[in-house]
């Protein structure tokens, strides 16, 4: 299976990289990405610098990585890793973006949490949390502008936002109820 999958990315300009190269490239991205924005870095690294993917391959992977459940960066790593080296490539890419930062957050976290009882550090942390939420608002706003392209998608958006925020429905229940409707309508829409 691995050999067959290794030929998937044939229309990219470079031959498939070794598992080691793949692991190192994703490790570098995982550990240098802070506060988001890693998708743009991945594009520069894999399409522009290394030529492992074409623009089209990368962008279709990105669209799916963002719409499927899961962490975007992890999904994109899985997708790109799979294209290059099959299931093993996917696993290596996932491990490379997740494990080194996981150790980093334990190290930083345990240190900072010990200091968080200090009022100044506590206030700075609270400020960081608030500012990070501001970044989420901005991302959410962009996502909304991108997603609401007609009446049905706007209704799906509105029901999700109001259902979870105002009516305190479980987000899981909202997704379970609305996702099939949205995808089914998406299918019908493309048929016409």
């Amino acid at each position, binding site marked *: 299976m691995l050999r067959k999958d290794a030929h*998937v990315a044939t229309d990219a300009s470079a031959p498939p990289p070794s598992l080691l190269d793949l692991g190192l490239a994703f490790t570098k991205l*995982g*550990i240098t*990405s*802070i*506060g988001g924005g890693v998708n743009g870095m991945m594009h520069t690294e894999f399409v522009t610098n290394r030529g492992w993917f074409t623009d089209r391959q990368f962008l279709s992977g990105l*669209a*799916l990585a963002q*719409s*499927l459940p*899961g*962490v*975007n*960066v*992890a999904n994109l790593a899985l*997708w790109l890793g*799979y294209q290059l080296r099959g299931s093993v490539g*996917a696993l290596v890419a996932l491990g490379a*973006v*997740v494990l*080194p*930062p*996981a150790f980093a*957050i*334990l190290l930083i*976290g345990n240190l900072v*949490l010990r200091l968080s009882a200090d009022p100044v550090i506590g206030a700075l*942390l*609270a*400020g*960081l*949390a*608030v500012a990070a*939420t*501001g*970044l*989420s*608002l*901005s*991302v*959410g*706003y962009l*996502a*909304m502008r991108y*997603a*609401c392209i007609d009446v049905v*998608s*706007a209704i799906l958006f509105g029901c*999700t*936002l109001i259902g*979870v925020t105002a009516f305190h429905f479980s*987000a*899981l229940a909202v*997704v379970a109820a609305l*996702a099939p409707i949205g*995808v*089914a309508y*998406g*299918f019908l*829409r493309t048929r016409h």
Partner: protein
Amino acid sequence: MKDDNLLVSLFVVFAPLSLMAIGGGSSILGELQHSVVDGRHWLTNKAFLDMFAISRVAPGPGTLIVTLMGWHLAGWAGAIVATIAIFAPSSLLVVVIAHFWHSRPNAAWQGAMVYGLAPLAAGLVLSSAITLLSNARGGWVAWSVAVGIGVAARKVKLGPLTLMIIGSFAFCGLLMAAG
């Protein structure tokens, strides 16, 4: 035995969130806060928000907040179980779909997924941000700093880390000014 139960509980709480993270890790933060603070009483609201802040300035995906929570609650075993729970279910799904994608690439199918899920993702990301802000320290100060940073992110060419640091100082300054 109590520890084993805690590890099972960690998995039971985090694994469904994995499949719910449409649009990425930011969309589950509201539900995560609700589960671990109000539901299970594993963390205080302050501890949750501290960990959230750390997860945003530490390298790597912000969802690694669950790794830190797992560690905090049950040491190494907790960190490992929490990390697997949040990544494994969605990752399996992605690999299965990647596999079928290669055997039968179909643009209509991809378009339908993106069309149907993108509005939910946007709704979840925004509702998570609103939930977090309602529980944040500082009341109106928190709201104004968050909105200010959100607008600045669209207008100014500064990296996310720089914006967060500016926002944090602005937050502290306004808190002191407001008494």
